[in-house]
């Protein structure tokens, strides 16, 4: 709040709750939350480590029968070898980046398209809005995973990026819907009226006035979309759909499970990819919690006070 101003800031509707300790709207937003840092660490460090590790571990270690199959973790193979003689650690090292790539592409595509559609439909209303609302309402009624199984099966050999885009196809309407509802309130904000009074074009209002205000919200959607895409992609891979020509954690997990790693007690085959995935999901979760709190300061308050 203002430091040396002449007038105390008038609160338009200084509510009871505000007096009682609930945040005032315009607090500086905090990006440096421990949750965010921990989340990003969980999420990004395996990626960075795996990229670095590529310098030490050759891709040939991920080939079938590179080593004796099913050897327990040892000094030679920190995570043992799998049923087809691949070094499990090497497989993880080479799977991490593509897994990421897929999740990020899916999340990004869904978020970008969804955000654009959401802004346009929310700002203009009219036919664009009817279309976006219609699509997202329909999508909400469609079981995406079931449809994705169908699409993935019908499409046959999808590439990793192809799979990501198909997933995005199902996620953008929901992003659009959420962004739209934000825009609906934003567009009524007086600063939009002021922009119109300043003779600005719709396009420039959408990009320069609305979009910056949606950054945290869209970031939160993006994180959610990544996590959702990852969950769906791994799910598809677990039932054997999706690309098999690129190493991914989902594929590694599916390999292990369908080859009977559980019953044969080969925990080092399935547990590391599963654990790494869990780590990713937790990381994304923490990030999304943190971003949520930034977008919605009330959550932070509630999280802290005792």
């Amino acid at each position, binding site marked *: 709040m203002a430091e040396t101003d002449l007038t105390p800031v008038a609160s338009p509707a200084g509510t009871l709750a505000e007096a*009682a300790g609930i945040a005032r709207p315009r607090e500086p937003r905090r990006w440096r939350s421990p949750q965010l840092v921990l989340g990003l660490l969980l999420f990004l460090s395996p990626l960075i480590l795996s990229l670095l590790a590529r310098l030490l571990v050759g891709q040939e270690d991920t080939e079938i029968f590179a080593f004796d199959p099913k050897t327990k973790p040892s000094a030679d193979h920190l995570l043992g070898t799998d049923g087809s003689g691949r070094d499990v650690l090497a497989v993880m090292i080479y799977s991490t980046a593509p897994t990421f790539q897929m999740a990020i592409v899916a999340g990004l595509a869904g978020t970008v398209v969804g955000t654009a559609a959401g802004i346009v439909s929310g700002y203009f209303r009219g036919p664009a809005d009817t279309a976006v609302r219609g699509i997202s309402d329909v999508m909400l*009624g469609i*079981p995406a995973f079931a*449809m994705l199984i169908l699409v993935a099966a*019908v499409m046959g050999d999808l590439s990793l990026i192809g799979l990501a885009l198909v997933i995005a196809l199902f996620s953008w309407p929901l992003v659009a819907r959420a962004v739209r509802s934000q825009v609906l309130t934003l567009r009524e904000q007086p600063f939009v009226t002021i922009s119109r009074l300043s003779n600005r074009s719709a396009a420039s209002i959408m990009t320069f006035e609305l979009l910056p205000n949606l950054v945290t919200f869209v970031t939160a959607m993006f994180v959610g979309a990544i996590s959702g895409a990852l969950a769906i992609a*791994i799910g598809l891979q677990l039932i054997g759909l999706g690309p098999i020509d690129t190493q991914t954690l989902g594929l590694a997990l599916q390999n292990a499970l369908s080859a009977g790693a559980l019953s044969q007690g080969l925990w080092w085959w399935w547990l590391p990819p*599963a654990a790494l995935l869990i780590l990713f*999901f937790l990381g994304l979760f923490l990030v999304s919690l943190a971003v949520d709190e930034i977008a919605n300061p009330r959550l932070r308050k509630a999280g802290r006070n*005792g």
Partner: protein
Amino acid sequence: MTLDYALRRIAFFFVVVWITVTAMFFLVHLAPGDPITDQVTRMQASGQALSAGPELIEEYRRQFGLDKPLLEQYVDYVKELAQGNLGYSVTNFPTRVTTLIGDALPWTLGLLATAMVLSWVVGSLLGGLMAWRSTPAFARGLMSSVMLFAAIPYYLVALLLLYVFAYELQILPTGGARDPLGTSGGPFAAVLDTFEHALLPGLSIVLAFTGFFMLGMRSMMVSVLGSDHLLLAEAKGLPERRIFLRYAMRTAILPQVTTLAIYMGYVVSGSILVEVLFSYPGLGKVLVSAVDARDYPVIQGVVLMMVVTTAGALLILDLLYPLIDPRIRYGRD
């Protein structure tokens, strides 16, 4: 709520169903390969030199109406559908798709609906408590760890549970819905057996969704906590429990009802992976094997079923919500 609104809403439901049916129909029919060729190839692959191969394919295509122009097939399909006829399974001819769905549905609903409702109740309560100011810190910490399960896709949770309880400790079955040998010892033993089989798949769903509902309830609760009516309730000198239940939970729970309805809708489709992992004989398994065998009518039937439940749950919600929430008069946006 006006009748007009209700009618529009119901019409919209049918639009959703129709769009999905159409999309699915063309998706499936324009894909390479068809179930008949598949059948014949399988037979050839199993060593029958089928001298009558091409004719057989033609005959079966005729029998399933696959020889007609696509548009005509589509019209026929929609007509049949309107009469509640989902047709026959290609790979299990002459079993009707409705029979297949009817056999599988009780398992799916039994397992998932129970798990979902249970997690909703527990999740909402815990989520509410978690945001509540006077919840002790240690309890809050405990709850946060439950909430973490929301982050992890339930199939990974299922995997861990499966490994620990079925493979390592071997105290629960690894899959299926019942002991195939049957149980002796009367109905109680049978119920126990069914319960044992449902426990792990159910638990993985409950864990994941409890966290999920907690998360939703928590943020709902947080915004309710910031609202003036709670402060007034406190000023009124009401006891803590009463404020929590009648003022906080009761306002916060309404949006949770929406979430539950949406997820109840997804129950049927959400079951797919659990059923595959636990070989549970529900709709998800039917779908996956039908996709495998390109059994169009079954795929369409199952997905339609899923759409109807999902969109249907939303429809029911929209129609009933104004009765639940006094603030809503017309519709949601």
